[in-house]
C-alpha cells in the first residue's frame, strides 16, 4: 500500500512536470527605435502563432514560452539583449529584423548553436558562416533581379535616380541594385544617400528631380520611404517610383497616404496576396492586434510554424543541431503545415524560396499585379 502511494505521488509529480514543461523561445528584435514598425510587426506575428499553437495544446504537448528582448534598433543594445536571450537557453531564436543587428550578434548565436529565424534582408547575411541562421524573407540578391526585370521590360526605363538609406540594409541593397542595373544596361542618373531616421528630404528630392531620370528607385525603411514619397509629391516629382518590399509595405502606405499611390515594386510577402490562407491570417492578425500587418507580420508568423513543423513532424524531439540539419534543403507546403501559408523552402545556407509578387498601390491599397514563381521552378 505504501509503495502504491509512493507510485501515485511520483506519477502525479511527473504528470505535473510534463504539463508545466515549456519550450523556451526568444524574440530579439526592434520593438522600439527607428525600425519599430518592422520589428513590432515581426513580434506580433510570432505572438499570434505562439498563442494559436498553445491554444491547440502546444508543440510536442509542451506550451511555448516566448520572451521578448528589445534591441531598441541599437547594435550595442542588440548584443546585450542577445546575450541575455542566449543565457536563457531558448530552443529557437527569432529576429533581429535589422540587418545590422543580425550581423553584430551573428557570432554569439553561432557559438551558442541556437537555430535563428532572422528578419534581416541584407544580401550578405547568409554568406557570413552561421549554419543556424534561416531567412524568413528573400535576400536582396533575389528581390533585386525581379524588380530589375520590371524596370527594363515593363517601364522600359533607361535611367534611374536612386535614393537609399545609408545603413547595412540600404548599402547592401544599393550594391545589388547597381549590379542588376549594369547587367541590364540601365544608367544610374542620381545616387542619393540618406541617413536612417532622417526627417527632412527636401534637398534629396531636389537632387532626384534635377537628375531627370526615367524612374525613381526608393530604397529605405518604411518611415523614411513615407517621408520621401510625401516630399516627392510636395515638390511635384512625378516618378514613376519603384522599390522593393518596404516602399509598398502597409506601414509606408499608411504614413504616406495618397503620396503612396502609383508606386510599383516587388513584394516578397503581403497580406494582400490572392491566397485565401494569407488573407485569413491577415484577418486573424487584425482582429488580435487592431492593425493590418505588413510582410514582417507574415515573416514572424510563418517562422514559428516552420519551427513547429520541423520539431513535431520531422524530429519528434527538441534537438537544436538536428533542427538545423533538417531545415536545410527542406520545403514545407501548406498541406504539411497550414500555418506556413505559402509553400516555402530553405536551401543549404538558409536562403528562402517561395513565390513572390509584383504590386502597385492604388487608392491607398496594395494591389497585386503579378505572381512571380519560385526560383526553383
Amino acid at each position, binding site marked *: 500500500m505504501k509503495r502504491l502511494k509512493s507510485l501515485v505521488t511520483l506519477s502525479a509529480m511527473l504528470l505535473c512536470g510534463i504539463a508545466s514543461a515549456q519550450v523556451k523561445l526568444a524574440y530579439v528584435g526592434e520593438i522600439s527605435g527607428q525600425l519599430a*514598425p518592422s520589428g513590432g510587426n515581426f513580434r506580433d506575428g510570432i505572438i499570434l502563432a505562439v498563442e494559436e499553437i498553445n491554444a491547440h495544446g502546444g508543440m510536442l504537448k509542451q506550451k511555448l514560452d516566448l520572451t521578448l528582448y528589445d534591441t531598441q534598433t541599437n547594435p550595442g543594445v542588440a548584443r546585450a539583449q542577445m546575450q541575455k536571450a542566449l543565457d536563457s537557453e531558448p530552443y529557437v531564436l527569432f529576429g533581429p529584423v535589422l540587418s545590422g543587428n543580425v550581423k553584430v550578434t551573428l557570432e554569439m548565436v553561432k557559438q551558442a548553436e541556437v537555430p535563428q529565424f532572422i528578419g534581416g534582408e541584407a544580401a550578405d547575411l547568409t554568406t557570413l558562416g552561421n549554419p543556424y541562421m534561416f531567412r524568413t524573407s528573400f535576400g536582396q540578391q533575389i528581390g533585386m533581379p525581379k524588380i530589375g526585370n520590371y524596370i527594363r521590360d515593363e517601364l522600359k526605363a533607361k535611367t534611374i535616380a536612386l535614393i537609399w538609406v545609408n545603413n547595412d540594409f540600404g548599402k547592401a541593397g544599393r550594391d545589388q541594385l547597381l549590379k542588376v542595373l549594369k547587367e541590364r544596361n540601365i544608367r544610374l542618373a542620381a545616387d*542619393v544617400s540618406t541617413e536612417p531616421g532622417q526627417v527632412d528630404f*527636401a*534637398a*534629396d528630392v531636389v537632387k532626384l528631380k534635377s537628375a531627370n531620370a526615367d524612374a525613381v528607385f526608393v530604397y529605405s525603411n518604411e518611415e523614411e520611404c513615407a517621408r520621401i514619397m*510625401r516630399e516627392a509629391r510636395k515638390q*511635384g516629382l512625378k516618378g514613376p517610383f519603384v522599390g522593393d518590399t518596404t516602399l509598398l509595405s502597409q506601414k509606408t502606405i499608411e504614413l504616406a497616404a495618397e503620396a503612396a499611390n502609383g508606386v510599383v515594386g516587388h513584394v516578397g510577402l503581403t497580406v494582400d496576396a490572392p491566397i485565401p490562407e494569407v488573407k485569413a491570417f491577415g484577418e486573424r492578425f487584425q482582429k488580435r492586434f487592431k492593425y493590418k500587418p505588413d510582410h514582417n507580420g507574415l515573416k514572424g508568423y510563418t517562422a514559428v510554424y516552420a519551427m513547429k513543423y520541423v520539431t513535431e513532424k520531422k524530429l519528434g524531439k527538441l534537438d537544436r543541431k538536428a533542427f538545423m540539419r533538417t531545415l536545410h534543403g527542406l520545403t514545407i507546403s501548406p498541406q504539411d503545415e497550414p500555418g506556413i501559408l505559402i509553400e516555402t523552402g530553405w536551401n543549404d545556407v538558409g536562403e528562402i524560396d517561395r513565390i513572390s509578387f509584383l504590386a502597385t498601390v492604388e487608392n491607398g491599397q496594395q494591389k497585386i499585379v503579378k505572381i512571380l514563381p519560385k526560383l526553383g521552378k
Partner: protein
Amino acid sequence: MWQTSQTINFAQGEFVMAPAFFILIGTGTFGLPFWLAAILGGLVTLVLLGLAFKRLMVDPMIRHGALPLVVATIGLAILMKEAVREFYGADAWPFPALWATTDVTVFGAVFAVQSLLILAVCIVVVAALQFYLAGTLTGRCMQATAQNPAVARLLGIRVERMVLYTFLINAALVWIAALLVTPIYLAKFTNGEILGLYAFIAAIIGGFNQVRGAIVGGLVLGVVDNFCAVYISSSYRMAIPLLLLIAVILVRPQGLLGRVEERTV
C-alpha cells in the same frame, strides 16, 4: 523665455512634438473631428506646456540658478519622449496636412502650396508677435520685464504675470509649429531631438537674446543646411551648420543680431 525668466528650455523640441500627440489622442481615442481636436490640443498645450511647466518646474527651480533648470529641462525632454513612446508607441503616425499637397508653377519653378502656406503662416505669426510686443501696453510691459525685471517691478509692472504670458505665448507657438511641421515629419516620439537641436543652433547663430536674431538664425540655418545637402553632400549636411555655429561662437559670440550682455562681478 531667456530674457524674461532666464530659462533655457532643452525640452523645446519635445514641446513641439507633444501637441501633435495631444491632437492625435483627440482624433484617435475620442473620435473628434480634426479641427476640434486641434483646438482642444492647443488648450491642453497652453495648460501643460505653458502654465504647468512654469508653475511646477521653472518657479521652484529658477531660484537655484539657470544651470539646475537646464538640467531639469533635459530631464523633462527625456520624460516627455519616453512617456509618448510608452503610451502611444514607438511608431510614426500620419498627421493630416492643413492644406492639400498640391503645387503651383511660377515662371517654370514648382512651389509646393504647403510650403508657401507654412511660410505665410510663419510671417503672419512673427508679425503678430512683433506687433503684440511693440504695439500693445502688455507687450511693452513684457519687454520691460525682459530688459530689467527689478526696474519693471518698481514701475508697477506685475512681473510674474508678464513671465507667465511669455510661457503661454511659447506654448501657443509650439502648438502652431506642431500643426505646421508634423504633416511633413510625421508624428513620432523622437521628433523633438532634431527640432530642438536645430532650434538651439539657430538661436545661437542669430543671437540668443533677440527675437529677430532667432528668426534670422533659423532662416540662415535652413538655407545653409539645404544648400549644403544639394550642392555639397547630403551625408555631411549636419556638419556644415555645426561649422557655422563654431564660426559664429568664435567670431561673434553674441550671435549675428544678438546684443552683448555685460555682467557685474
